[in-house]
Every structure is written in C-alpha cells, then in structure tokens.
C-alpha cells in the first residue's frame, strides 16, 4: 500500500515545486519585460516632450525669436544661437574628461594593483566620499577657493605656452573661466570613473595576470598586457558615465563660469563660453512663451548629445567584442 502511494505523492510534490519554479520564472520575466518597457516609455515620453515643446522655437523665424526671447541677438537662426552653447557644453565635458580619466585610472590602478590592502581601502573610501559632495558645494568651493588658486597658474600658462591654442587670449583675472570649470567638473566626475575602473581592474582574471608574470612581465607590464586590455570596455563605460555627468552639470558651472556665446578655444578667458545646462538654469526663471520653447530646444540639443555620446561608447565597446575576453 504505502509503496504504491508514496511515489505519486513524491512526484506530485516535485511537480508542484517545478510549477512554482516556473511561476517564479514567469513573474521574473514579466518584471524584466515591465522594467525594460518602463525605461523605453520614460525615454520616449521625455523625447516627445522635448520635441513638442521645442517645436515652436524650431519653427519660429529669427525675427519672432528676437522679439520673444530675452537677450536674443538680431538675425540669428536658432541653430546659430544654440551652436555656441553646444560647443561650450562639449568643451567643458571634454576638458573634464581629459583631466579626469588619466587621474582616475591612475588612482584605480594604484588601489587595485599597487597599494597595500589597508591603504587601498582608505583611499577607495576617500574617493567615494568625493562623490557625496553636492555640486553646489563644488560651485562655492570652485568660486571662492579654486579659481583664485588657479589664476596664477593660468597666467603662467598663458604667458609661457600661449602659442598652444587652448591657452591663448586674455586670461581672466578672477579665474571664472572654462579652464577652472573643467578642473571642477573633472574633480566631480573623478569618483565615479575611479570607482567603476577600480572594480573592473580588480576583476582581471588571475590567470591572465599570471600568464603575463610568467613571461617575465614587471608589474607595469602586467597592467599593460593583462589588466588594461581587459578593463578597456569598463573604463570606456566609466568615462561615459562621467561624461554624462559633466555634460549635464548645472550648478557648479552656473556659479563659476562667467558666461559668453563664442566659439573660441581660449579656455583661460572669461565671458566666452556657456553650457546648455547652466544656460537653461540661468534663464528659466525669467522666461515665458517662446523663451521657454527656446530653452527646451537647448535641452533637446543636450538630450541628443548625451544619446550620441552613449551610442558612440557602445559602438566603441562592441567594435572589438571578439577581443574582449568575453568569449
């Protein structure tokens, strides 16, 4: 009796657990699909909002814009008006990235491969703390502390290496220039790039590091042959995260930069550049009607830039997928 009864009981129990398993599976799938769909929906909603609200400005004639938007120059198309803003935004972000990435990689490599464990933990925590500082504080600090401190250095660069395109022009006596903004932005994006790079470097397979060591590699050569190639796509992703933050940073730029609307590369001069985010924040309170539409058109430009940056990064990472070590 018992022997004939128990096997079905056992198997039905098993089937039930299989069912809940499958149930979880289904629930999980719906959560995943739902989350993906939500992201797409939000993205689409934002894009739609930007386009529809920017539309009046995009279709307006230069005369209408000059009449409806505060401080809008005569006879200027919207593109010509936004161009310098796009230029300023990209310039600020690129400066920040150029300054931050090498330093971040250096710190990340030091933490992951050189420092004794105790020190690397302390250092890692310190870098993470940098990320916790609000950007208003960075703005204040940049304005009151960093700008005056950097000014003599900017002057020196201008006087001695002024032939270099970036360092020409009239140096700002207050340091409220793109160069100072670049430094502050670099400090702001340093933690995220460092943290992500460090994680990636730490995940280098032991096997590959030992392969390099066994060929007679020094510590630096191990990093060059095993760690950096392995971490390449991770560092690119990290940089893109930082670039995204630098592109969109508002407060610090608004507080430090003395704005202007030119295409110059003279990053030491004041009153030359402005970024889209800071421009929107500065003009929003006093804008109405077409003025708001123009601001939103600028926002649309920023949105497109960020998307383009992200897609380029993805393309760069994917291009050498065969060699990524993921297969």
């Amino acid at each position, binding site marked *: 009796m018992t022997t004939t009864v128990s096997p079905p009981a056992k198997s039905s129990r098993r089937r039930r657990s299989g069912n809940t398993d499958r149930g979880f599976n289904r629930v999980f799938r719906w959560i995943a699909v739902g989350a993906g769909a939500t992201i797409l929906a939000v993205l689409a909603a934002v894009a739609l909002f930007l386009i529809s609200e920017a539309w009046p400005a995009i279709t307006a004639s230069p005369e209408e814009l000059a009449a409806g938007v505060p401080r809008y120059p005569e006879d200027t198309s919207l593109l010509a008006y936004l161009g310098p803003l796009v230029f300023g935004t990209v310039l600020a972000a690129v400066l920040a990235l150029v300054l931050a990435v090498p330093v971040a990689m250096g710190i990340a490599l030091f933490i992951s491969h050189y420092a004794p464990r105790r020190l690397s933990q302390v250092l890692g925590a310190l870098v993470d703390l940098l990320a916790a500082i609000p950007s208003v504080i960075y703005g204040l600090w940049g304005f009151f502390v960093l700008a005056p401190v950097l000014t003599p250095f900017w002057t020196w660069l201008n006087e001695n290496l002024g032939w270099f395109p970036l360092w020409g022009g009239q140096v700002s006596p207050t340091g409220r220039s793109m160069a100072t903004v670049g430094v502050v932005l670099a400090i702001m994006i340093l933690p995220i790039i460092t943290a992500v790079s460090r994680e990636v470097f730490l995940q280098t*397979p032991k*096997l*590959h590091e*030992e*392969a*390099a*060591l*066994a*060929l*007679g*590699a*020094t510590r630096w*050569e191990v990093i060059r*042959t*095993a760690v950096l*190639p*392995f971490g*390449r796509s991770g560092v690119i992703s990290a940089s893109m995260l930082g670039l995204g933050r630098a592109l969109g940073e508002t407060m610090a730029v608004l507080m430090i930069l003395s704005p202007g609307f030119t295409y110059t590369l003279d990053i030491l001069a004041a009153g030359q550049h402005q970024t889209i985010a800071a421009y929107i924040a500065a003009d929003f309170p006093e804008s109405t009607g077409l003025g708001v539409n123009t601001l939103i058109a600028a926002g649309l430009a920023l949105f497109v830039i960020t998307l383009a940056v992200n897609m380029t990064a993805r393309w760069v990472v994917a291009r*050498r997928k*065969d*060699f*990524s*070590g*993921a*297969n």
Partner: protein
Amino acid sequence: MAQRIDTKDLNIYYGDFRAVEDVNMTIEPKSVTALIGPSGCGKSTFLRTLNRMHEVVPGARVEGTVEMEGVDLYGPDVDPVAVRKNVGMVFQRPNPFPTMSIRDNVLAGVKLNNKRISKSDADDLVESSLHGANLWNEVKDRLDRPGSGLSGGQQQRLCIARAIAIKPQVLLMDEPCSALDPISTIAIEDLIGELKQEYTIVIVTHNMQQAARVSDRTGFFNIAGTGKPGRLIEMDDTATIFSSPAEKATEDYVSGRFG
C-alpha cells in the same frame, strides 16, 4: 642552453602554513621530469617556486635554495622578472590573452620591456614558435584572429608557443593536458618529446600513463594528512618508479592502490 636545477632543503610556506617540506631535488638538463602525487601535496606549489611565481601570492615565502647552474634563484640580487624570462611556464588552464590576436599572443613575451623587433623577425619568430608548438598549420591563415577563439587544445599549444617564443631554458608545465581531449593530449605529449631536445622540462601530471610516456625521471610527492606539509617521497628514473620503486607509498600510488 638547457639548465640544471638543484633544490636544497626547500620549505615552502603560505603565510604560516608550511605547504611543502624539505625538498632536495635535482632536475637534469634536456630531460623531462614528471612530478606526481595526490591532490594537495604541493606539486603546483613546488613547481611555482622554480620560476619565483610562488611569491606572487600574498604572504607566500620560501626557505632553502633553488640553484640553477649553481646560482641561487632566491639570492639577494636576483630579479624575479629575469628568472621568469628564463623559466617559462604553461598553466593548467589555457590562458592566452583574450584581447590579443594569435600572433600578438606569441609575441607577448618578446614585446615586454619595450623590446623592439622588426616585422620580419617577428614573422619568423611567430612561425617558428607556432611550428615548435605544432600549431602552425592550424592557425597560419588566421593569425590576426583572437587567441580565445581557438579550441582548448589549440589554446594550450598557443600558450606553449608563447612560452617558447622567449627562448627560456626551462619549461614548467602544470597539468598542461588536464583540460584537453586525448588527441590534443597526444599532440602535446609529442611536443614535449621534441621540446626536450632543447629545454629542461618539468611537468606536473595526475596521469600515470602520461608520466610514464613522456618523462625520463619522476618525483613522487605525498602528504601525511590534511594540514601537514607535502614531501618529496622518492625520485628516480621513470622506469624504476613505475616498476620497482624503493618506497611502499610510491608503489601503492603508481599502481592505483592509494588511499
């Protein structure tokens, strides 16, 4: 070219844990030495002291001497990097650099230290190393493809090519065939037979037939129990170890009556 290795009273530690105790061993040049023994007895640990890879593990250290042609590898002014250039190593799991092409993998060791090498020299070296590893015919048309796209056996031979491209005098192999099929295994065993014309080879293996097939001398390591250090029980000509070993433990192990 090939060099002779003598270890004297070699004790190997991981932190406070003594993994291997008092190894006195002589490894003859231009011969194949096999190291056998149960898992955990310290074969890999011992092998890695021969090219100073042991100390890469945090807290790991060595007492005693490892002399290569009379020079102590652990002497005060010996550079571990130089030792590793001289003593190549092939690992248990094939580990070609995944971000490099097959060609760059072979050249990886040569390109270290920013050594410049002309394109034609590099081509020659790639070809001769891949020939040496019996891989040339299989990969000559796809040298620019990633090394990780090869089969496991091919990857292992690529690693051998990479190791011999820097012309070491000693080649260490830690279970080089354990991840491979019988055909790749035979290919690598044949290769070992050829390589011993030029190199001193030390191979760790769990495969008794393999030790019997490829090696000239065999060392048997054993361990008294968990937490105890591994010891070199006996070392002799391979034929002797497998037919009439001096120690009972060796006989039990090679005849499969172990444990």
